[in-house]
Structure formats: structure tokens, C-alpha cells
């Protein structure tokens, strides 16, 4: 028999690779870094991800090479385990379970033991703990012997470091620096004053130890670096100060020979200080974004910096950048919608400041960043920068429109609308037109006309200044001095409605209608003549989201309002078809099918409903997809269509639904719905032919039919029947003889004759008066899906009886009048 699982929600990429500092292997060929729940192994020369070391069930909180064996690596995780891996083959060697540890954010290694930074839940403090690794052959070892090394340490792993081959450990917490000598079993504490004269902060942010010399470098919040010496005396310790950074030093690192000290911070400049000649510095500027970690390969040939924009840069001895490993950039907020580039099928959203990132979902790799703002980024906190706030692709992917804005406290809003043309030669987008100040206020929505056959491309933008503008591509030669200037964009129409503020806009699938919502009123315009065709309104509250139906449902316009209402208007009759009360945070239309997805926020978690505007019953619904409010999602077309015939997962045949999880600080952020895995359980000796599938399914349905009373009554027309679909899709040469199939085919067409006739009559009536249909659909869809009890079915039958009587009346009454 055929078994189907449920539709699953799967995390799909975009995890942080800059969470902890990466590790370069001894031969400098690989780079290991913690990424979500796995450890990723990258090649330092090709930037490719070679394997994922999977096995942890919690967030991986640190990676470290085993000192005694260069081919093995430890990783520890928030799930309380430390694992040892062979990274070249990607094989898990050992699992050690620390049962008493709740949280293990970092570790460091001495020769015999692993020292881990742990968080004791009971005491609510961070502690350094040494774990003895028993030399047993077992896969799973439980470590019981834990000895605390230091307690009351900082939660920041950068503030704990081993010095001179593990002779001492230096740990900084706030304004204090503590050095613990293992041999003497003695610790020294040094403190700094809270604030120095100029108001800078002395809080220690990171610590590094010189590999050969007794010297500890500490980085401070005010950008200073202090070099401590003689710290094995309580009183006679000395320190010297280096100052170049203007804001906090986030990472410090000595080169293996100890000749240089590397430092980095928010300025995104890697600074190389000569040890003992600190006035000589080398700089590597413009690394992209703030440096979070610096590591050096054991032979000192490669430097590696992690950046706040989820990037790891590999640098050859402070001279030039040799490789960049870029993960999904997650900025402070995703202000553009998630989009799918129609050409590369990659996901497009905000990336680095002023950039759009093109992210390939199947490969979980950033393809490229498109520089939208094209200005030098100044790394300084508190500075208002240009941000990309809106972006839109046209249907073929040959045009990209972006809006960038910058708002200073008391100055005017600066807005730029840019239109980018896809250049076939360079395979990237090239700036075509820049429109500075396209509107007087913020742009609230922007969309392209998606008609594929139209001659001209059109873009509509709505703004808080009360206008919406249509932009059109014109190739007016007379405007230009030279013919080599190609076509460019200019404003075609400015529309307004009673001075109300337009919130969203949407083109119909064929591009013949434009719907613009002005607060609580939806206006429908004809883009050909710019005539206001009609206005629709659902009284009390402002419209939040607008969406046209596709394909067979293109006569429907759906909108969500601020008072938790989902409305569906029929554009042929210009009237409300149905409405239901749901708090919808996001409404999406699948570009390839009629399906619409609604993310519905309820009690702190988000539910998903997939439905067709023409049917009152949802195709699919899932409660509590994730916690929090989903505001960004996208339907991504599949490269090849799936052949799933399970009704609840058919909506995933053409496209996949990705959404961005609401702000969880550490977990990966792109999530996808996957269709159920197709499990085949072979029973007896029946061969698995498509015909068997067909027959088997049909039998199953027949079994199911008498059980569900209402669902049989409201079943779709026979054309949509899965059995028939299967029959029509199966190649002819594998089908049995027609005579054999005929009776079954006819039977499937004639599923309970009387019901079929009734349904036909009902559909006839629907054209005249759709009240009955409307009433039934104003209920919550999931209620409808649950199916009614016997009582509603009874009223239904009565209603139908009533209608039949009414229809009879209508037919003879006029005749009577005439005679």
C-alpha cells in the first residue's frame, strides 16, 4: 500500500556562520565553523562547503582542533554534548554527554582535558569547567568528572584565553582581568577604573595572549588596546596602551610567531601591529562590515576574519583578500519583501546595508550582492544610511525596481527610485534610470505589471503623499542627444483618490486591471486609459494587503483589513463574494496556480491556510507553523513539477513556500514547506505499476466515501477527481485494455447519480443568487473543513428544496402574467 506522511516544515539554510570564531586546519586547506546545528567545513581556496558535520541537536557553540591529532576536531553544542569529528571524511568519532550541563557556549583546550565554558542553570552564572576525556572506545561516553577551573567569568568567549601553551589562563569580566596559573594554582586579579577622564569606557571586550612572551593584550570598549606585562606579580604589573580604533575592539589575535598583533572592530579595518614596535601599523581597510572574530592559521600564512554580515574573509598575510565565504546576510531588518528572481530562481532580499542579496536556496549559498546605493559605507554607529526599502521584479526578470531611502532626524526624506535592467552579457543588473525624489513621502508599495504579452512595461508605486504613480519605459529618441542612450523610465500617470493615502497596489494577472487601496477603499483602475473603473469597500477598517487571484480565479480580488477580515470581491459583479474573520498577517498568491496562502497570527503563533478563492474550503491548513508573526514569505517555483496526488499536498506540486521566521536570535531563518516523503510499502507480490496505484487509490476512496457524508456531497466535479487525473496522466502503453477500464471509468464518473444532478442544479442557481454560497463560506474555513454534523446537512437539504420551489415559481409566473 501507499503511505503518506504529513507536510513538514523544514529549516532551510541561512544559518549564521559568524557566531563563533572559525578554525583553520594545520595544512591551511580547510576552514571549520559552527553554523546552526552543524559544523561546516569549507575549502580555503575554492570557498566551497565540503561537508556538513551533522549530529548535534542544539546550536553548535564552538569548534576547536584536537591538539594531539590534527585531523580531528571537537565541537560543543547547546544540547550539552561535546563531539569529536574526523573533518576530512566528515565522520563522527565520539560523543560525550555531559549530563549535568545545561548550556555550553564555548570551550578551550589544554593538553589533556577540554575546558568548557558552561552555564550552570541553578547558580545562574558562567563557569569554566575542565572535562577529562576518558580514553574508551565507546561511541557514547558520559563525562562525570568535571572540575571547575574558574568561576564568575564573562559570557563572552573572546574574553577567555590560554597563554604560552596552556601555562595560564586569562579571563576578563567587565573591568577585571584575572590570570590563573595552572602550575601554581594561583590567580591574580587586576582592575581598571570604570571611566577614564575623557569619558571612554574601559570595559574589556576581548583578550589575547602572546604565544612566546608573557604578554596579554586586552581590547576595550573605547577602542584602546592594552598590553599587560609582569602580571605574575600582584603590584608590579605594567601595561602600555595602543589606540587606533574609534569604537570597541571586538577581536584581538597574535600571529603564531608572536611578531604581530591583529585587531579589528566596527570600522571593518584589520589592523596589524608590530609586536614591540607598536608605532608601525598596517591596515587592510574596507572589509565590508564590522569584524567580529579574527583567527590566524597555525602556520601564520592565512588570516581569517568573521564579519557581522555573516561573512568569513580569508586574507593572505594582511595583503590581499583571497576568498570570501558568504552566508545569508541578515541585516537588522528585512524591509524589502522576500522575492524570487525569475531568472536565477534565487531568493532576493535585503543584505548588507544598501545591497540586495541573491541567495540560491537549493545550494544554500549567496550568489551575489547587488550594490543598490552605490555609495561608500561609513562604519559609524548612529549614522543614518541609505537603506533599500522596496524592491520588485517584473515577470520575466529583466527589470528590477528598487527604492532606497534615508531619513535624518530633522531633514527631508531622501528617496531614490532606481530601475535596473538585466544585462545578458554580464549576467547581472545594470542601472538604467535613477529617479530622485519620485514621491514626496515614503513609498508604501510598488509592483510591476505582470502581463507577459504587453508591449510596454509598467511599474506602479504608491506613497504616503496620497498619490500613486505609474512609471513606464519609453524610448523617445527625441529626448536624447545621442541614439546610444537606450530607453528609460518616466512617469506616465499620477493618480489620487479623495486625498486618502494609498497603502498597497496590485496588478491583475493579465495586467488589465490595477487595484490600489486607499485606506478602507479599494479602487480599481484600467492601466490602458487610467480610468477609475470602480471602488470597492468593506466598511470599517483600512485595507492591509491586496491580491488578485490567478488563472481560473482571476476574477477575484482578495484583501485583508485591519479589523481581521479577509474579503474576496468578485470583479465581474463588483460585489463582495465572501469574507471571513481572520487576523491575517500576510497574504500571498502562488504565481503558477490558483492557490493563495494566508499566514494568520493567533495567540503568539502563526497558522497557515492555503486556499483557492473560488472554494470556501482550505486546501491545506496547519496550526502553529512557528511562534511569532510571519511577515515575509514567498512562493518559489519548482524547477520540475512534482507528481504528488495527495490532495493536501497538491499545492506544493508547482512551487515551494518559503518563509522567514520571526526574529529568533540564533536559529536559522529561512523555512520551507516540504511535501510528504513518498513512502511505498510493498505488500504481497503485486507489482507496483501505475495502474495498481490507480486502482489501489480508487478502492481506498470508495472505502472512504460512505464514511464522510458531507465531503462526498461537496466533492469536486469528476474532472478534478484524483483517480481520473491519474488515468489521464498515465502513459497509454502501461494502461490495461480499455474494455477492462471502461466500467470503472464510467462508475467513477457516476459517483451517486442523484448527487451529481443536484450539484449541477446548484451551480446553475449560483449565477442567479449567490447568497446561499456566501453564507456557507462566511464561516471560518477550518470549520468548514472539519465537516458539518448531520444537522447542517439537513438544513442544507431544506434550503435546496426551498430553492427548487423558488425556481419553479420563477419559470411559470411570467408566463401566467403574459397570458
Amino acid at each position: 500500500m501507499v503511505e503518506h506522511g504529513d507536510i513538514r516544515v523544514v529549516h532551510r539554510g541561512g544559518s549564521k556562520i559568524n557566531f563563533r570564531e572559525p578554525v583553520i586546519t594545520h595544512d591551511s586547506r580547510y576552514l571549520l565553523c559552527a553554523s546552526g546545528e552543524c559544523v561546516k567545513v569549507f575549502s580555503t581556496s575554492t570557498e566551497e562547503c565540503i561537508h556538513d558535520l551533522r549530529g548535534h541537536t542544539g546550536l553548535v557553540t564552538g569548534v576547536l582542533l584536537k591538539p594531539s591529532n590534527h585531523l580531528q576536531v571537537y565541537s560543543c553544542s547547546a544540547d550539552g554534548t561535546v563531539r569529536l569529528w574526523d573533518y576530512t571524511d566528515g565522520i563522527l568519532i565520539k560523543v560525550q554527554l555531559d549530563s549535568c550541563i545545561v548550556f555550553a557556549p564555548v570551550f578551550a583546550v589544554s593538553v589533556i582535558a577540554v575546558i568548557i565554558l558552561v552555564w550552570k542553570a541553578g547558580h545562574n552564572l558562567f563557569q569554566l569547567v575542565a572535562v577529562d576525556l576518558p580514553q574508551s572506545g565507546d561511541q557514547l561516553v558520559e563525562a562525570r568528572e568535571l572540575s571547575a577551573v574558574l568561576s564568575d567569568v564573562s559570557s563572552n568567549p573572546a574574553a577567555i584565553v590560554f597563554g604560552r601553551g596552556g601555562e595560564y589562563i586569562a579571563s576578563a569580566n567587565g573591568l577585571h582581568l584575572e590570570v590563573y596559573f595552572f602550575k601554581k594554582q594561583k590567580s591574580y586579579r587586576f582592575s581598571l577604573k570604570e571611566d577614564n577622564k575623557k569619558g571612554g569606557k574601559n570595559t574589556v571586550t576581548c583578550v589575547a595572549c602572546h604565544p612566546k612572551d608573557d604578554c596579554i593584550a586586552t581590547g576595550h570598549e573605547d577602542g584602546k588596546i592594552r598590553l599587560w606585562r609582569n602580571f605574575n606579580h600582584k603590584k608590579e604589573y605594567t601595561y602600555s596602551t595602543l589606540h587606533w580604533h574609534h569604537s570597541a575592539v571586538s577581536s584581538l589575535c597574535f600571529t603564531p610567531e608572536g611578531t604581530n598583533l591583529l585587531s579589528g572592530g566596527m570600522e571593518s579595518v584589520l589592523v596589524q601591529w608590530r609586536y614591540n614596535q607598536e608605532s608601525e601599523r598596517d591596515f587592510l581597510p574596507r572589509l565590508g562590515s564590522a569584524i567580529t572574530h579574527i583567527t590566524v592559521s597555525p602556520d601564520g600564512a592565512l588570516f581569517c576574519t568573521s564579519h557581522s554580515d555573516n561573512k568569513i574573509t580569508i586574507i593572505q598575510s594582511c595583503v590581499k583578500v583571497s576568498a570570501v565565504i558568504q552566508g545569508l546576510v541578515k541585516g537588522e531588518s528585512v524591509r524589502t519583501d522576500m522575492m524570487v528572481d525569475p531568472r536565477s530562481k534565487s531568493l532576493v532580499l535585503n543584505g548588507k546595508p544598501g545591497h540586495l542579496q541573491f541567495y540560491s536556496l537549493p545550494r544554500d549559498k549567496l550568489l551575489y550582492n547587488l550594490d543598490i546605493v552605490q555609495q561608500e559605507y561609513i562604519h559609524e554607529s548612529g549614522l543614518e544610511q541609505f537603506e533599500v526599502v522596496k524592491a520588485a521584479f517584473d515577470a520575466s526578470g529583466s527589470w528590477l525596481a528598487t527604492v532606497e531611502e534615508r531619513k535624518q532626524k530633522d531633514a527631508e526624506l531622501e528617496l531614490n527610485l532606481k530601475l535596473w535592467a538585466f544585462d545578458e552579457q554580464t549576467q547581472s543588473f545594470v542601472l538604467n534610470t535613477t529617479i530622485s525624489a519620485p514621491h514626496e513621502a515614503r513609498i508604501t508599495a510598488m509592483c510591476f505589471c505582470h502581463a507577459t504579452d504587453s508591449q510596454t512595461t509598467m511599474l506602479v508605486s504608491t506613497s504616503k503623499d496620497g498619490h500613486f504613480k505609474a512609471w513606464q519605459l519609453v524610448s523617445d529618441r527625441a529626448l536624447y542627444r545621442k541614439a546610444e542612450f537606450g530607453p528609460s523610465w518616466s512617469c506616465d500617470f499620477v493618480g489620487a483618490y479623495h486625498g486618502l493615502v494609498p497603502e498597497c497596489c496590485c496588478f491583475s494577472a493579465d495586467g488589465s486591471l490595477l487595484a490600489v487601496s486607499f485606506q478602507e477603499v479599494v479602487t480599481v483602475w484600467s492601466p490602458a486609459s487610467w480610468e477609475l473603473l470602480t471602488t470597492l469597500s468593506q466598511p470599517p477598517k483600512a485595507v492591509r494587503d491586496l491580491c488578485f487571484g490567478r488563472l481560473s480565479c482571476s476574477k477575484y480580488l482578495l484583501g485583508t483589513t485591519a479589523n481581521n477580515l479577509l474579503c474576496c470581491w468578485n470583479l465581474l459583479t463588483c460585489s463582495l463574494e465572501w469574507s471571513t474573520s481572520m487576523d491575517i498577517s500576510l497574504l500571498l498568491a502562488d504565481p503558477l496556480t490558483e492557490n493563495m496562502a494566508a499566514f494568520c497570527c493567533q495567540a503568539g503563533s502563526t497558522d497557515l491556510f492555503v486556499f483557492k478563492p473560488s472554494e470556501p474550503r482550505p486546501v491545506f491548513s496547519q496550526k502553529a507553523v512557528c511562534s511569532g508573526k510571519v511577515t515575509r514569505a514567498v512562493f518559489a517555483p519548482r524547477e520540475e513539477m512534482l507528481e504528488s496526488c495527495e490532495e493536501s499536498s497538491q499545492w506544493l506540486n508547482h512551487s515551494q513556500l518559503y518563509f522567514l521566521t520571526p526574529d529568533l536570535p540564533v536559529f536559522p531563518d529561512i523555512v520551507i514547506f516540504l511535501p510528504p516523503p513518498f513512502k511505498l510499502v510493498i505488500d504481497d507480490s503485486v507489482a507496483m505499476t501505475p495502474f495498481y496505484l490507480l486502482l489501489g487509490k480508487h478502492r481506498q476512496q470508495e472505502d472512504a466515501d460512505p464514511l464522510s457524508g458531507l465531503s462526498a456531497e461537496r466533492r469536486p466535479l469528476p474532472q478534478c477527481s484524483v483517480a481520473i487525473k491519474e488515468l489521464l496522466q498515465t502513459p497509454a502503453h502501461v494502461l490495461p485494455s480499455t474494455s477492462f477500464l471502461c466500467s470503472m471509468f464510467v462508475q467513477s464518473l457516476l459517483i451517486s447519480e442523484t448527487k451529481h444532478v443536484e450539484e449541477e442544479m446548484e451551480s446553475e442557481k449560483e449565477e442567479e443568487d449567490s447568497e446561499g454560497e456566501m453564507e456557507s463560506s462566511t464561516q471560518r474555513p477550518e470549520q468548514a473543513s472539519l465537516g458539518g454534523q448531520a444537522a447542517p446537512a439537513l438544513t442544507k437539504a431544506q434550503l435546496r428544496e426551498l430553492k427548487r420551489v423558488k425556481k419553479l415559481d420563477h419559470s411559470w409566473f411570467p408566463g401566467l402574467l403574459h397570458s
Partner: protein
Amino acid sequence: MASFKPTKVQVYPKLGEKVTQDTLYWKNYKAPVQIKEFGAITNIDFSPVAPHNFAVTAFTRIHIYGPFSQEPVKTFTRFKDTAYCGRFRSDGQLLVAGCEDSVVRLFDVSGKVALRMFKGHTKAVHITDFTSDRYQILTGSDDYTCRLWDIPNATELNTYQEHTDYIRCGVTSKLNRDLFITGSYDHTLKLFDARADKSVMTMDHGQPVESLLLYPSEGLLVSAGGRHVKVWDLLKGGQPLVSLKNHHKTVTCLCLSSSGHRLLSASLDRHVKVYNTTNYKVVHNFDYAASILSLALAPDDESIVVGMTNSILSIKHRKSLDESKEISGQQRRQPSYRVFVKGKNYVPKQDDYLVSKPVKQHLAKYDKQLKKFNVSKALDTALETWTRLRKPEITVAVIKELDRRGTLKNALAGRDEQGLARLLNFLIGNVVDPRFAPVLVTAAEMILDIYQSVIGQSSVVDRQLLRLQELLEREIDYQQDLLEVLGMLDTMFASSLPRKEVNLHLSKRKTESINSDREEDAVGQ
């Protein structure tokens, strides 16, 4: 490591003249050939037959130049005094010229000595011309008379004494051998018929007439005198058609383009203007170094020859087709560019080992300073006189960039009197420009904030601040007026639009829902 991104200078739409077919046509000439003559060049005449040599009358000589020669191919020097108006006969064989000594001389183009000398005028003869039958000569003189002479006999045929001042211009009809027109300093144009003893038509130009021109059809006559160019319709009995006043000094010469669709006028104001002869609008304009006395166009507009008071003859030849294409290629091959492309177009051979070198990014000076965070220096660079006056958009772009970096205040502060005066000068010049206003207003506010305390210490700065204030007040008034006009227009438009009924689907839906409610009740019962 990303490279430094230079400051973006916004491209503003150009407010310059429109490029038309005319500008393209009239700009398509090579750089002029300039030849120094012996005195002011009073007349230029093209030979009607190929190779279209032209006779240049200057001081006591007439030089004949070939179409492309820069040396005269022929010189006539047998004049006792200043020569005037050397003109070719329609077969290009004979040349006639007047002279200050009142003698009219007729030359064979290939000879040297005058074939005939016509003596009869008592004063300088400024105008000579052949009639269309080629056997007679028309002359006009400062003794107020114009005469007709017979070439074969060298005798005077007729004398007309109707003008009351110097006769300085005249043309003969190319279609009728008896008709000719003269213009005089007595402000009149007179049309004479050799068959009659009197003028047949008189037109009043209003200013001393300097030049005359007949259209090829000879229905229209153009006269130039004073600052005016007037067009007369001869067929309507000398009715004035248009009066053009595009020059600001006396118009000295007129000329028609070969197609007859464009009229050229040259003036003492150093300009040559090109008019469209259908609507008489100026379509193009040439500038010359000195006052122009004479102008001629070669057949097919192959060259424009202009003679000036500073005795320089300027000849512009039309670019040939392939030459005009070549020009752009030549510009690309200038040495400075060649340095940049050196080795770039070399196609590597199979065994070559390619050593790649990073391309050095060229940055403007202010960008280099911005890269080093030298904000005050960058602003100083952007405020240099040439940039400030010629490319204010660069200065504004730098100010905008500084504002974006949050360092505009630092850059503006700490300036001495001279630096502040320069800054204020720039603001006064550009703050009301709508393209720059949003950026410069913030800068102006910052300047006022920073230098509040030093107001009153320097008279220069104070004066400029007052000017700025005055400018802004004027601008505010102006904007207010504009808004008022806009409001008036809005009301007018609103009242002129027809009212359209909005369909009442809303009420319709209400009734529908009421209906359905009733139905539900009915079902419940």
C-alpha cells in the same frame, strides 16, 4: 576588500539649446582657414562656374582664391585707390570692380590689365554688377547716381538720379535683363526698369540700406540696413513681409543657402545668423572674432567665407562624410587616452604568460581627500573657483556626501573670513536653484548655527549674510505667488471637469445582505 566608491555626482537634465537638424548641419564645418588680407574685406563673390573660385575685394586689391587653396590663384592690383565690389559675370570669364577713384574696371579673369575702364561717375563706385544678358554693367556710386554701361562699346547707356544719398548696394535680376534694384543710404530701395527712365517701385527700409538680396524666384527681396533685415514681396508691389531684428549692430551682408531654405545675415556685431525662410526664426548662429563686412556661401554650402574689418578672411570648409566620422576616431586617439589604453588591446598569444596587475582606480581630488577622511580639505577642493562656477553640481554632491557621512558640520566649521565669504558666495549663487536647494538649505542652516557668534565682526561676511537674507525673502514671496496661481488653476480645473456618478454597489450589497438575512429567517421558520 572592496574599493573606494567615489562620490556620486548627480546628473541633472541639461537646460541648453536643443539639438536640431540645423545645428547639426551648420556645425558640420572644419576649423576655419584664416588669411590675412591688406585691409578690410568689403566684398566676396563666388564664380558661378566650377571650380567656384572666389574673388575677395580688400583695400586696393582683388584676390581670387581657388576652392581649397590658401594662396590667391590670381591677383588684380591695378587700382589707384580702394577697390569695391569685385563681381564675376555669370560665365565666370569677366570680373568687374568699382573703385574709390570713381573708375569702374572690367577684367578678364585670366588677364591682368583692365579690358575696359568706365569713367563717368564723380565719386567712389561701391556697387557694380553684370545684367543677366551679360553685355551690360550696372554701377552705383556715392554721387547718388546709378548707371548702366555697355560692355562692348564701353559707353554709358543710362543714368538714374533718383536716390538722394550714397548708393551702397544693388542687385540685378537673374531672370530679366532689364530689371535691377538699388539700395541707398537715403533709406530707400528702388526697382528700376532699363526700358523706362524712372524707377518703377520704391520701398522704404527705414535705415540706410547696406545689402540687398533677391530670392532665386525673384518674388521676394531681402534688404538689410541698420539692425533690421526686411523681406519685401515684389509681386505684391513691394509690400513688406517680415522685419527681423536679431542683430544688435548694423547688418552688413546677406546671403542665401544653396537650397534657398535658409537665409544668412552677417553683422558688425560679429555674428552670422541663419534664418529659416519659412518662419524667419533664427535656427543657428556663428560667432566670429571681428565685425563682419562680407559673407559668401559656396555652391552646395561647401564653404562659408567671411571677411572682417580686421582684414582677416575666414574660410570654413564643410566636413566630408568620412571626415566627420573620422573626427570621433581622432579624438579617441589623442595621446592622453593612448596612455590609458596602452597594452589593453593587445591580444595575448598562446604561449604568453599573463601577469595581471590591479587597475589603479582614478579618483578625483576631493574623493582622495574623502577617502582619507580629510573633510574640510575635501570641501575646500570642491569650492575651488573653477568647480564652484562651472560645475556647481560637484560642489553640491560633495556637500551632500559630507552630510551623509555626518561630518558636514566639522567641514564647515573653523573657516576664516575669506573661506566663509567663499562659502556664502556659493550659497547665494545656488541656494534658490531648485536642483540644489534641499542640500544647500541644510548647509546654510549649519553655517548660521556655527558662525552665529562671529556675526558683526567682518563687514564682508555681514554684507553677504544680508544678501542671502534678501534673496531668501524674495524667493519666499515668489513661491507664495506661485502657490496662489496653482490654487487658482486647481479651482478652474475642478470646475471645468464633468461630474461622474460613482456606481452605488455599496448600497446594492447592503440590500443583498438584507435579502439573505430574510431568507435565513425563512429557513429557520
